[in-house]
């Protein structure tokens, strides 16, 4: 007869002899770091709905083929980009969230500036790539910035794009906002929560690099933060789509750490000196 004690003993014996454990704390921590960062990237997907209902100048742009043969969606007219003055964008108005039919003029200006820069710089940095809208952010155009995106600071604008070449399709994200915290407030490089590799940029910018390598399923995200004056710039690249659990779609991210830094430290993105 099997009583309760026997049942407990049988269960304990049943689970006693397993194979050696493959998971380690180091492995879990590494996976946790990647997971946190991936969720950070993926969280922007939730903001896509907001971005989609905001009427932005970018929405009026029509798709065309860029001068170097790259297909890009909805670029601003060249005259608009050419007329931009190298001055800070206007200060934010009282409303933090753009209304359905209006947009903060500061955010509008920021979105235009970021779009103009990306539509010029990214194809030049990535010859041979084709750029198409990111399906995780419905209603957006490739490399065209719209308000919101990463849940970051004031006047945040975000541009994304899929980038495809012979190796496959990857994801690009660039977000620019007015910095709401000094990087010294939370030391990501040397403090107890440090997870980034840090560098100083060509113009003295503080750069944080989050690259934890490929996950077990082969997906690999690289994210670079640049603090330049009062501007916070996030540039990210992934070899998978933006949705949660998206599979790997190319061997490696379409941009390297150094290329992301090159992209993100451009003076054109320093919107808030």
């Amino acid at each position: 007869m099997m009583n309760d004690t026997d049942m407990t003993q049988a269960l304990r014996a049943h689970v006693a002899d397993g194979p050696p454990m493959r998971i380690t704390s180091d492995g879990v921590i590494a996976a946790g770091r990647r997971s946190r960062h991936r969720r950070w990237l993926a969280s922007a997907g939730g903001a896509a709905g907001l971005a989609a209902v905001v009427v932005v100048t970018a929405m009026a742009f029509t798709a065309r083929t860029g001068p170097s043969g790259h297909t890009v969606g909805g670029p601003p007219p060249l005259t608009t980009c050419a007329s931009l003055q190298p001055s800070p964008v206007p200060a934010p108005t009282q409303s933090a969230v753009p209304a359905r039919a209006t947009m903060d003029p500061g955010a509008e200006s920021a979105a235009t500036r970021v779009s103009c820069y990306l539509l010029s710089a990214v194809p030049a940095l990535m010859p041979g790539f084709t750029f198409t809208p990111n399906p995780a952010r419905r209603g957006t155009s490739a490399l065209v910035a719209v308000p919101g995106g990463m849940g970051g600071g004031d006047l945040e604008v975000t541009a994304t794009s899929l980038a495809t070449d012979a190796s496959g399709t990857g994801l690009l994200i660039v977000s620019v906002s007015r910095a709401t915290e000094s990087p010294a407030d939370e030391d990501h490089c040397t403090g107890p929560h440090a997870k980034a590799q840090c560098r100083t940029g060509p113009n003295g910018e503080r750069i944080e690099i989050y690259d934890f390598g490929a996950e077990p399923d082969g997906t690999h995200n690289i994210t670079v933060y640049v603090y330049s004056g009062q501007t916070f710039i996030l540039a990210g690249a992934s070899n998978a789509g933006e949705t949660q659990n998206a599979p790997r779609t190319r061997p490696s991210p379409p941009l390297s750490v150094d290329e992301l830094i090159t992209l993100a430290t451009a003076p054109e993105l320093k919107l808030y000196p």
Partner: protein
Amino acid sequence: MLGWEADFAEFFAARASSLRRLAYALCGDWHTAEDIVQGAFVRLYRQWRRVRPETADAYIRRSVVNAYMSHRRDRRREWVSSAPPDRPAPPGPDAAARLDLDRALATLPKQQRVMVVLRHLEDLPVSEVALLLGVAEGTVKSQTARGVQALRAALGDPVTRTDEVRGSR
């Protein structure tokens, strides 16, 4: 590794083995058990600074149970990424009994299996199992009793009295 990650690593070292045993008792496969435990620890890592130390154990146990309960939904992805199978364990005197228990556990509905394992392997009180699963204590008692009864029957035990199943503590 710095600061809170060292605390997390210490918690991992203390709890990973027993959680793997719990997961194995639930799912019956060591690889799946490790996947479940790793996923639970990754989730805990993300929340570590928000989880009070005294509740970390309950948090991760709940995470393991929830992962097991929803395991079927993720099966396709796990097949794709599964590691090579383990070398089979050499046959021993307990192998047959272990196989029998494996089969017997596999016959239980998922929630019933969870209750039996939490009550008899983890030695959790009825109230804690009820809280973890979000069910009434009476449900835990009755379902555990049925589960144990089914195990006894599957293992060839003629005694299927439910009054021996332990009650609330």
